Every structure is written in C-alpha cells, then in structure tokens.
C-alpha cells in the first residue's frame, strides 16, 4: 500500500461533519423528488382512463341491465323500440366459449404434460415451446381468418356457424392454456414424482394421480383465466359466426349472436332517427343496449377472474 487513497481533509470538529451529513446536494435531491413525483404521476395518469372506463361501463350499463334485457332476444325489435335484449347473445357466447374450452383444454393440458413430463429438452419439445410462443402472438383476427379458411375448404365458402367460432377461439386459447398449465406442472416438486415412481406406480398414473392432482387448483385457475381472455374476443366471431337477431341453440348450423359482437353491432348501428311525434322512440336505444351488454360482458370476465383466483386460494394448501 504505497500510494494510498488519501481521504479528503478531515473535517475539524463535529460542525463540519454535521454539515456533511445534512443534505448536501440540492440538485440530486430535486431529481429524486422529481422522479418520485413523475413515477407516482404515471401511476395516477394510467389509473384515470381505467377508472373512467370502469365507471362509464357500470353507470351507463346499469340502467338497461335487468331481467327483461337478459331474457329476451332482438327478434322483431327495430327502430327506436324500447325493447330487445341479449338472451340470444348470451346463449351464443356460452356455447361457443364452452366448445372452445372443450377443444383447448385437453389439447393444451396434454401438450403441457408432454412438455413438462416427457419433453425434457428434446428437439420436438423445443420446437413446440417455440411454436407456442408464436401462437401466443397470433392476432385474433388472423385466428378468425384461419377458422374461416379451414371451413371454407371443408364445406365451401360462406359457411357461418357457431362451431367455426369455437375453432377460432381455441386457436387463441390453446397457447394460453399450455403456458399456464406448464407453469403449474413445473411447480410440482420432483420429489413427489420420484416418491411415487419409487413405489412402483407407473408413469402415467403418477402423472394422473400425483402431478395433476397436486396442481389441480392452479390448472383450474389457468383455464378460468384463459376462458376469461377469449370470452371477450370480438373480431374472430364477427368473421366466422356473423350476427343474427334471434335465438339459435344449434352450434353447427346457422349464425349465432355473441355478446362482444352484440356490443359492436349495437354501437355500429348508432343513433336512431326518431320522428318527433313518436314518443315511444328512444334515439340512443342502440347505444344504451351496447353499454348494458358491455357491462354484462365486463361482469362475466371479472367473475371468471375472481373465481379463478378464489380457486387457487381455496385449494392453495394442496399445492406443496
């Protein structure tokens, strides 16, 4: 230690030290405070539109959201009539989404099982992982085009029915299910698998009875969140399922209405030109319906999210 660090001249007595220890650099302090304010402001700024959105959807939608609205379709409703509801759209949304889930969950879950339990760095597993990434990024409208193209090939162009929509939605849903399931399966400690295998339980039963059972809560949550994500998809359904005003229970024939498309449709129809002497005509009836349907959709999505999280919470002790 020849050329040593020479600390700055010792401050004589405690007065100078006190000064050193009191805030010395106003500029740095200002920067710090400024950034703190900016970061908090960014947060507040971002909350404004989101609060506004939530508030408007609730306040504008609540007026029309009643039993009548939920239990009636748009059949025979025209102009500014104070009538019409979303029953047909709810039926369509539930059926189409349910079928999408029925397609996606087995494929997604099995793929996740393959990736976690069997893949183990094989080229195929790596390819699949990569493709799942790619699939996650498919724009929803492209998924719609794909489903359309697929069924145009099978049934000739112009086919529009609910199941095509289910296929389009499952293209969007499968990667979400794979991702969340994969994450959950990887959380299962390896010791559990080994313990089971060491006791002579075959691999597939180990997966079924140990791995899946341990992670069932997380898997359920993942599926719920995936459903919540696709249930609000509009564009693919607009292309593949179309619009209709009456109730259609048949997923395999004829157009169906769905909630998100209903919202768009009502919005696109806009204001109704009412003649002055027609007191029963409501000029903004379409907009009112759009808000009410949007609120319904909003509530469904929030409910699915909530249930999804609660499932994890209720069953949480079973994981680990």
């Amino acid at each position, binding site marked *: 230690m020849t050329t040593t*660090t020479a600390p700055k001249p010792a401050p004589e007595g*405690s007065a100078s030290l006190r000064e050193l220890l*009191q*805030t010395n650099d106003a500029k740095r302090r200002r920067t710090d405070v400024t950034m703190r304010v900016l970061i908090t402001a960014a947060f507040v700024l971002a909350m404004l539109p989101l609060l506004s959105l939530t508030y408007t959807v609730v306040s504008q939608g609540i007026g029309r959201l009643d039993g009548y609205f939920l239990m009636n379709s748009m059949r025979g409703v025209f102009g500014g009539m104070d009538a019409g509801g979303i029953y047909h759209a709810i039926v369509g949304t539930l059926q189409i989404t349910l079928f999408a889930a029925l397609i996606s969950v087995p494929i997604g879950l099995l793929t996740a099982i393959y990736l976690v339990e069997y893949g183990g760095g094989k080229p195929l597993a790596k390819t699949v992982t990569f493709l799942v990434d790619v699939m996650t990024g498919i724009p929803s409208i492209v998924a719609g085009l794909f489903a359309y193209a697929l069924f145009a090939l099978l049934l000739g162009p112009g086919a529009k029915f609910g199941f095509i929509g289910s296929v389009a939605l499952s293209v969007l849903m499968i990667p979400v299910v794979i991702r969340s399931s994969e994450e959950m399966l990887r959380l299962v400690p390896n010791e559990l698998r080994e313990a089971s295998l060491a006791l002579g339980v075959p691999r597939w039963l180990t997966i079924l009875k140990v791995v899946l059972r341990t992670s069932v809560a997380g898997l359920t949550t993942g599926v719920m969140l995936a459903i919540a994500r696709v249930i609000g998809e509009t564009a693919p359904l607009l292309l593949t399922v179309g619009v209709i005003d009456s109730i259609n229970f048949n997923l395999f024939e004829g157009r169906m209405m769905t909630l998100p498309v209903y919202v768009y449709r009502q919005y696109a129809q806009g204001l109704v030109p009412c003649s002055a002497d027609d007191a029963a005509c409501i000029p903004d009836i379409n907009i009112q319906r759009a808000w009410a349907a949007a609120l319904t959709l909003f509530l469904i999505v929030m409910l699915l999210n909530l249930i999804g999280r609660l499932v994890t919470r209720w069953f949480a002790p079973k994981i680990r």
Partner: protein
Amino acid sequence: MAQRIDVKDLNIFYGSFKAVADVNMTIEPRSVTAFIGPSGCGKSTFLRTLNRMHEVIPGARVEGTVAVEGVDLYGSEIDPVAVRRQVGMVFQRPNPFPTMSIAENVLAGIRLNNRKMSKSEGQDLVEQSLRGANLWNEVKDRLDRPGSGLSGGQQQRLCIARAIAVKPQVLLMDEPCSALDPISTLAIEDLIAELKSQYTIVIVTHNMQQAARVSEKTAFFNIAGTGQPGRLIEIDDTATMFSSPKEQATEDYISGRFG
C-alpha cells in the same frame, strides 16, 4: 476522516418486534472493531444501523442515538443518503454492478455526486482506489471489462475499492469473507490491516480466528432465545476478550461451547 462512533441506548425494531436491545458502545477511530456472536443475535442488524441501511427494510426503526464525532446520525436534520456516503459498507457477498465495467464500478458512487469529473481525474481515482484495495495490479489491464468476470475475492476487493472511492469516514463490513476461499480471505484481511490506518472499520464475522487476527476490539452479541432481542454482552480489547472475558457467555461462545 476516521472518526469515533458513540452508540447510546440503541433499540432496533422490525415493526413491533424488538430485534436488538440496549446497545451502548464506543467504536474507536482508526481501528478495527469486530462483532461476533451466534447467528440471529442482531450483530448484522446493528451494523446496518450505523449507516442507516436498515431503513431499507420496511417497518424497521430505531430508538436511541448513534453519534459520529458527536453528531447524531438519527437527528432530524440528517439525510440518510449523506450518512451512507460518510459510512461506507461492504456486504457478505460481493456485489459489483454486473452491467458496469471494473472502472465504472469503482466510480459508481462518485459519479452520483460529481458528474463533471474529468476523464483523467476519474482514471486517477480509479487507480488510487484500486491500489487502496490491493487490486490494481491484477486488473489494471482490463479496467473496461465487466466486474462480474473477476474471481470472488477480487470482486470483494472491487467492492471495497468502490466503497473507499467515495472517501467515507467509516467502513462497515458485514461478514466480507464468508463467501470467499481461504486465500482470498487472507488477502482481504491484509487489506483490512492496511485500511485501518485511515478508516474506522467495523467488521461482523462468524469466524473467531478472523476477529482475533484483524481487530483491536471485539464485541460479543448474544440472544437469550427465539423471539428475544439480541443484546451486547461485552466489548473489550480483543486480546482480553479472547483470554479472559468477563462474562461467562462470552467464554462459552469463544471456547466453542455453543453457537
């Protein structure tokens, strides 16, 4: 530069939990003071209150005074950021900034205050600090390479260089050798011996031989049981502590009967 630290009636809390109770001690300037004691006895916690680093943990607070040359670090006018400039710290595991080069790591602290330092001034300071940390000869040819490429012991000395580049009054070391091999440990101990001519050094260590080798004074902390606060049992000259401690607990610990 090196200054005396007086601690009076210090209590440390995490939320409502009292972690350390009633510490009174004086830390002499230009010397090495070692803190020893079993795990969880609060010696590291106490060390962190000497430069207000404990405040980083939410809910941590302190009662009592820590005075450097008579100035209470916890006075209302005192800026914790300024305190940490005057009281530097070296951590258990070496933690150079991975995205910075060796030279940038050394200058990291100084750049905060004095951004308009000229290039040559910066180079001088880098050399000075690295020499101060006995690292210059090993790294002078690769100052612009990332600090994470060094060995553990070198990284730790880089962290010491980084701490002394700011020219603090006091240097706190929280088990600086616990993640290092014996050779690197020896290098750090040599360095501590050199640094004490200019700095007040406080070192927490689990290794009693290390405390005996490097320190002038040793403080023994102990804890009565889980949920109880840690306490300072005794502090004395290192030689006295290791030959004829006043307290039975100290003797038990030093002779290896527990802990």
